């Protein structure tokens, strides 16, 4: 099977702070790959570099065979993404959000309409298609984002903590959608999460990153055997230690806080 993502000696410095330190990994076409790590380990930074949002300091990336720096548009056409923070337009309806995405990705009109209907039915939002997104719950918004990300038939689907803040029922549902789309559309899935048991359940392969360095990678089974653990969670703690990671509040955390307050 060919590699759809190739990362070699990837490094990112932020004014002297090394967020990602010379990491290398491969993701095979069609697999579900989990990228795990404690807070501020470098997960989101890596996802941003893979998805053309951030320029690496050093190292090589190939996404679907293209370099994000020299061929950003080819890379962008290759993936769909669900961000950690919601990225829908609240003042538009579910259908309009889908339609805007389709136009931005130049999906021809007839295919666009057909795919929007199919995907909205798939995530069970078709009967709410004309409602403004601001009336949706957190789980509904996530489902809509998943449907939207698949609209242009990407080869790779990135999810950055897709189930954060959702209840078990919704989380379960969301993984079922993603697994089904992974099977049906042969889309490679690359995700980060704090819920290690989710990775244990759905991922074919896992990489664990800590302080910007990949400390282990392999199938969940391999990692459990390596650390002689009964669960991936236990293996994760053995590999990354028990200390709590202190994070400095960045601009983004202040924005998140304001957003919570304004919602009330």
């Amino acid at each position, binding site marked *: 099977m060919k590699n759809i993502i190739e990362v070699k000696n990837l490094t990112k410095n932020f004014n002297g702070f090394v967020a990602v330190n010379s990491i290398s990994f491969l993701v095979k076409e069609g697999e579900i790959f989990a990228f795990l790590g404690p807070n501020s380990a470098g997960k989101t930074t890596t996802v941003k570099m893979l998805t053309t949002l951030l320029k690496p300091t050093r190292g090589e990336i190939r996404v679907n065979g293209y370099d994000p720096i020299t061929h950003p548009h080819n890379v962008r056409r290759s993936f769909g993404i669900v961000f950690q923070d919601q990225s829908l337009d609240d003042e538009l309806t579910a259908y309009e959000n889908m339609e805007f995405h389709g*136009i*931005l990705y130049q999906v021809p009109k007839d295919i666009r309409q057909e795919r929007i209907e199919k995907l909205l039915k798939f995530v069970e939002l078709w009967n709410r298609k004309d409602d403004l997104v601001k009336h949706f719950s957190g789980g509904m918004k996530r489902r809509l984002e998943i449907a939207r990300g698949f609209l242009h038939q990407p080869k790779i689907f990135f999810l950055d903590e897709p189930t954060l803040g959702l209840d078990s029922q919704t989380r379960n549902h969301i993984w079922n959608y993603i697994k089904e789309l992974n099977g049906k559309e042969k889309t490679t899935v690359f995700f980060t999460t704090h819920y290690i048991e989710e990775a244990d359940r759905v991922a074919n392969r896992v990489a664990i990153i800590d302080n910007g360095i990949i400390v282990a990678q392999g199938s969940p089974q391999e990692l459990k055997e390596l650390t002689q653990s009964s669960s991936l969670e236990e293996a994760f703690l053995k590999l990354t230690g028990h200390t709590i990671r202190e994070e400095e509040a960045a601009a983004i955390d202040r924005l998140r806080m304001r957003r919570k307050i304004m919602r009330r």
Partner: protein
Amino acid sequence: MSAIYILWLRQIKRYLRSRARIIGSLGQPLLFLIALGFGFGPIYQRAGGGNYIQFLAPGVIAMSIIFVAIFSGLEIIWDRQFGFLKETLVAPVSRLSIMMGRTLGGATVASMQGIIVFFVSLIAGFRPVSVMLLPLAFIFIFLCALLFTAFGTAIASLLEDMQGFQLIMNFVIMPLFFFSGALFPLQGLPKTLQVVARLNPLSYAVDGLRGTLVNGARFGLMTDFWILAIIVGVLMTIGSYLFSKIQI
């Protein structure tokens, strides 16, 4: 092209759907027109200035435009974290089209707001001298809107969060408004303030509006037009450059 259109359309849809915002942002210009217009009217008349509402209305229209325009530019700060902007930044669309779509959308919305305030000022007693010149006035409205949306976008590309917002409000927007000749004539001001007003792009928008609505252009309509057009060009260039450098 379709990307620019869809981003423009999105701004228009959002504007038309937020009735509360439209009505809310009419409050301030209305207050200025009524409180200042009728409050200072008699003094202005006695000082030989003529009808103050006639003088004030173009200034208040310009004010409502710059508020809406700068805000819609600044929205990017918010949007790049929680909104459609992030979604557009990973789409196969050039940064220039994203910035153009947003700026044109914001400018259209600000112009609509300016036109609404124009109609409101008619109720307050304002009378434009010539219907023939109205299309020209709309051109100035749009130029003014474009200029300050591009300005807002440029600032927003430099800021990480909303912390600097008050700073911009009190040290940029308010001074621009007060030293533009929107509220009082620039003739007879101390030399320093005259120079400040001369350097303020809003002065030319106010002057252009006054010229087309009540025939009171001080700098001349052609001067106003060209100065505004050049500044729009410069700000759009700076704005696109800064916007293209945004990393999330």
